[in-house]
């Protein structure tokens, strides 16, 4: 295999595998910028990935599966918003409880689905006519299931929304200085409810993308820590959409790299024992990138009230 072909396959698969991370990270970014930390991504992704396969199987349509997954994600978001905004619970603990809840639901509801891999409908590759024939770029960028293209579009959309619209500024004000935002007439609690829900729906979309498009089918523990990596990407990307997206695609590629390296002719990588250590790669890379990010910048880019509930009438 020529190295260009190797690189082409790696990048193409990386972009596909990075798309669930991308949706989850962008959603989390919205929630965090409004001031609410949601650590429940892993559980939400699992529950919605399972729901996606189950609904697609029952209805015979991948679209129904996707819709159901997004709705489940949003429901988790409403629950999290209720706990953190209305009841002002500790956001770390509520997030962890969502992880338990989502993981458990996915495992119980998914038990009958294990092994359905072939039967459930899913989204096939949708090469873009014309563009997909480009050398190198065609296979890398333009021969994917459609959610991957939605991922391409989501990055500039979220960027534009956050930087250049009134609603985006209100969202950031609610997370940065809620007291001032409230004084200006922004309904802080409502804004947080909205973006926590929307953000969790992003995780729902991420789960569905994973189980209906990228690696179709359900196995227990499908996400294998991707929800946590997505949270890390938000931090590493400094709460900005483009760096987070690049990180998502990079991690998609790293995930894929562990498989691809074992397919090469290099004896070191063909030794099955190397595989155990290659499997650690995405997680070690996540730690390394998190450390690099904390080295590169002192605090200041994180939303200043992240994790703290807003009590109307106080100036915190």
């Amino acid at each position, binding site marked *: 295999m020529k190295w260009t072909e190797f690189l082409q396959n790696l990048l193409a698969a990386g972009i596909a595998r990075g798309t669930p991370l991308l949706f989850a990270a962008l959603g989390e970014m919205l929630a965090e910028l409004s001031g609410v930390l949601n650590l429940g991504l892993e559980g939400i992704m699992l529950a919605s990935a399972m729901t996606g396969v189950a609904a697609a199987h029952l209805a015979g349509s991948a679209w129904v599966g996707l819709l159901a997954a997004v709705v489940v994600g949003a429901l988790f978001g409403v629950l999290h918003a209720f706990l953190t905004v209305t009841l002002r619970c*500790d956001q770390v*603990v509520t997030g962890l409880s969502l992880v*338990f*809840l989502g993981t458990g639901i996915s495992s*119980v509801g998914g038990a009958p689905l294990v092994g359905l891999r072939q039967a459930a409908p899913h989204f096939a590759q949708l090469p873009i006519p014309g563009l997909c024939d480009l050398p190198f770029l065609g296979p890398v960028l333009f021969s994917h299931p459609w959610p991957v293209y939605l991922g391409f579009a989501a990055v500039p959309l979220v960027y534009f929304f956050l930087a250049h619209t009134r609603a985006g500024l209100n969202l950031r004000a609610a997370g940065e200085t809620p007291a001032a935002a409230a004084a200006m007439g922004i309904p802080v609690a409502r804004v947080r409810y909205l973006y926590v829900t929307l953000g969790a729906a992003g995780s729902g979309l991420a789960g569905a993308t994973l189980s209906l498009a990228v690696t179709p089918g359900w196995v227990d523990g499908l996400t294998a820590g991707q929800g946590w990596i997505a949270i890390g990407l938000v*931090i590493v990307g400094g709460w900005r959409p483009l760096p987070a997206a690049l990180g998502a695609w990079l991690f998609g590629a790293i995930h894929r790299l562990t498989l691809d390296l074992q397919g090469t002719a290099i004896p070191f990588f063909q030794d099955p024992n190397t595989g155990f250590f290659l499997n650690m790669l995405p*997680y070690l890379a996540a730690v390394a990138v998190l450390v690099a990010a904390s080295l590169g910048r002192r605090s200041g880019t994180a939303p200043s009230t992240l994790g703290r509930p807003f009590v109307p009438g106080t100036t915190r």
Partner: protein
Amino acid sequence: MRLRVEPRLVPSRLVRFGAPVTGLLAGLLLSAGMLELFGISSPRALAAIVQSGFAGGLYAISDTLTVATPLILCGLACALAFKARLWNVGAEGQLFLGAWAATGVAIALLPEGTPGWLAIPAMAAAGFAAGAAWGAVPGALKARFGTSEILTSLMLVYVAAHWNNYFIYSAWSDRGFQMTRLFPRAFWLPRVADLASIWPGAAGLTLHVGFFLALLLAAAFWFVMFRTRFGFELKVSGISEKTAHYAGMPVKRNIVLVLVLSGGLAGLAGACEVAGVVHRLQENFLPGYGFTAILVAWLARLNPAAIVLVSFLLSGLLVGAREVQPSGIAMMLQGIVLTCVVAADFFSSNRIRRVP
């Protein structure tokens, strides 16, 4: 008529204990509903759980206490870190490495004929050290660079799992099976069943000495937390790191120390599991004790006596849930209960008044 929420300045005893208990009951009710939603008969499932977890006589209690052992140890590990508001959510990984290190000492390091009095402490020490080292990594990264310990400790769980897999599947695999060979009999933790020659009723009781060690460490936890300077410093750091720093407390050193001790306790739990229960390292032999421990610590409000009690209750759930299919039920029930208890906290620190 309107409703207004106002904080309770001094929560009464009644609400402080009543709120979590109410949350627990609400959680169980919701769990029953959720089970029905998935087409599982909830009365039958709950009856099976209670029967095999608690009400099945001496054997059931012995099984439950055996499962409670790693929960108590990991619960203490989490509680120690949470007291200082350090979110060590990677107890599962520290537990894995503790189990790995104890196994390594037993099958790769010590000669077969080593007496138990030497081997068992060596395995325990290795388990503690390996867990501590695994906890030290997020601790050092947090103290030195301010990296989120939540994410790093969690990522390291996956690394530890793959690390163990290498030894289970390859390096220490017993004739290609997904497990190591059995430890020599002398290396097993003493069990209640060993007393059968003196008291015949003890035959078949699998409870091992690790449980009593866990109780001892719960007492030590109480002592450290409420009677030593280190414990006081932790609590101050937990409430306000700036205050602790201003008062001249070694905040950064404490961050590392807390995660080292926390990881060590979880590692010890791993060592107890391999030396006391399975007597080998094998694939998937742990049902997520390290994660359940987060729930234990929180339900117990970080109080060591309550950790023992909550561990007992939850381990009954885990033992009982083995009998009920599918296997994810225990995890789902834990999630529902934790959510409800966390929500109930609101009512112990706030009250709702009617405003005319």
